[in-house]
């Protein structure tokens, strides 16, 4: 059983995951930020592999990717930086990135590197289910790397069942069909959608992401799923000067352990 399943076995509600881009704001800030997030109370982490053409991302994450690439971040360097990951971080860690850099690094090599440094799963939004099953699944499973699928309000019930069968880790519920960084607006339709998924009693845990930025949206999402994922809001924090000092307050704020204005 990998770290992701262990986590969801132990903790069923209000699981908090935080996303940030590797190599941003500083080329070598990746593992420091990961460690600080764990200390501050994040339950697991998603590290973004920067890409030149991130078409599912809004301006905040686009900008962080562009800067990270300019800083010199590459897939190869990221795996080098992650060599000591498991000495410093014990929560589950996933990599999130687009398919092209993974292809260029080599899918087999990518899975092997994940296993080697202790990465538990990957989220590749532009890797379709058909291609995953035909070409990548064996390699992922051999290396015990979970592939995380996305579901949107428009994903059909039949497809959700198929995704549930193929998943081992959790399923990523998009709060709406959108790029990253929009704010969550929970309308009656969104609540219906969240409730519909909840009532399907999927075998995998679910995490809601896209538009989760504060305690209000985090706790709303946690009513319907096992937890939620914060991305752009945290990447925006990294823009400030002494961001390392602000991480504990940010995480506690999201969890509602302190109130932030």
């Amino acid at each position, binding site marked *: 059983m990998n770290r992701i399943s262990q986590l969801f076995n132990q903790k069923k509600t209000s699981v908090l995951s935080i996303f940030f881009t590797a190599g941003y704001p500083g080329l070598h800030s990746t593992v420091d930020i990961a460690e600080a997030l764990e200390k501050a109370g994040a339950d697991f982490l998603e590290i973004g592999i920067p890409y*030149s*053409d991130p*078409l*599912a991302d809004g301006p905040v994450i686009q900008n962080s990717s562009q800067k990270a690439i300019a800083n010199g971040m590459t897939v190869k360097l990221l795996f080098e930086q992650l060599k000591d990951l498991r000495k410093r971080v014990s929560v589950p860690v996933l990599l999130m990135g687009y*398919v*092209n850099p993974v292809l*260029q690094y080599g899918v087999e090599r990518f899975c092997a590197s994940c296993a080697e440094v202790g990465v538990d799963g990957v989220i590749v939004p532009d890797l379709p289910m*058909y291609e995953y099953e035909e070409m990548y699944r064996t390699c992922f499973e051999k290396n015990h790397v979970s592939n995380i699928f*996305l579901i949107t309000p428009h994903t*059909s019930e039949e497809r959700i069942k198929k995704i549930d069968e193929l998943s081992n880790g959790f399923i990523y519920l998009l709060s709406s069909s959108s790029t990253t960084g929009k704010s969550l607006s929970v309308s009656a339709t969104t609540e219906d959608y969240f409730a519909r998924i909840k009532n399907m009693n999927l075998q995998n845990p679910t995490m809601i992401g896209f538009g989760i930025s504060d305690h209000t949206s985090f706790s709303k999402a946690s009513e319907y799923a096992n937890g939620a994922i914060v991305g752009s809001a945290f990447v925006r924090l990294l823009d400030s000067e002494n961001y390392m000092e602000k991480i504990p307050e940010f995480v506690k704020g999201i969890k509602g352990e302190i109130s932030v204005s």
Partner: protein
Amino acid sequence: MSYHVNENGYFGSFGGAYIPEMLYPNIEELKRVYSQMISDPAFTAEYTQLLRDYVGRPSPLYLAERLSQKYGASIYLKREDLNHTGAHKINNTVGQILLAERLGKKRIIAETGAGQHGVATATVCALKGLECVVYMGEVDIERQAPNVARMKMMGATVIPATSGSKTLKDATNEALRDWINNPADTHYIIGSVVGPHPYPDMVARFQSIISEETKWQLKEKTGSTEPDYVLACVGGGSNAMGMFYHFLDDANVRLIAVEAAGKGVDSGETAATTLLGKEGVLHGSRSIVMQTEDGQVVEPYSISAGLDYPGIGPQHAHLYASKRAQYVSITDDEAMEAALLLTQLEGIIPAIESAHAFAYLDKMQFKGGETVVVCLSGRGDKDLNTYMKYFGL
């Protein structure tokens, strides 16, 4: 060997639909409605009628005598420049707007490089009374100013793409992001044979009218449907795919695709995709992409906005890998000289994109008497600024 798409959306090992889940329902709906539509006689009737009465098809196949004399071969020009709006792009947008109507979509988005596809999209939106939003790189907005004005006059909103190289690649990213955020009411009219399946196949079929006409026109003029050579320029590859389509299975017809070398293939400022690219995924399909070792897409360069793209359509990647077509490249300077030559020998000012295809004639060796068809994909009105600057007119 099949040069066409298989049931999984692949041409050989290229193609597919590498899209995030947000677009999955759209792509499925598109596949379904598109395949119903093309077997519906009512669609064929409406499409054919619009191409004839609105676009002005068939476009002439013109024997360019003075150019033929210069090169020692019979050179025919397929006059896509004479279409309404001045390029081949409208063949595709007429087809796709009829599709949008059947999809029940009220809002149309498009990306554009040279502005020809943006204009062709704004045109059919005006024709059908649909809202139109066009994404265009900031750099291209400047170098293709007349087309920006045409789009605005037709009621389209032109949104500058300000990321990356601020050209066609970035405009395409922005259009895809728009579609992700507005999946229910919006149809994305892609302007070339790129994007996720079924776009590459669909756009190729809408453009295939070019070679369909060429075959019977050539038969009328020469007695044979088969030329020795067919030439076309390649940005994403839609005019070339349309020009090649009905010749793919005619093994005697040599197909030549001309890419933009920009300032030279080794200059770092180029768009010579097959020469410098590697297999990769861009804008939803697996194809040949100019990229770094780490898989970051490289910013391309060409003097012509329509060829300034770091990939080619997956069907082209397949024609390249299977050697069915030959891929060559032409520099900015060579293209500009060829444009001037065509203008002065034939009285036709070509789009700079099309001029790349003409420039390759100069590199070919003719024995004498060969038949050559060159796709004159568009006219040069939009490029007057660039021509004025380059030639000091």
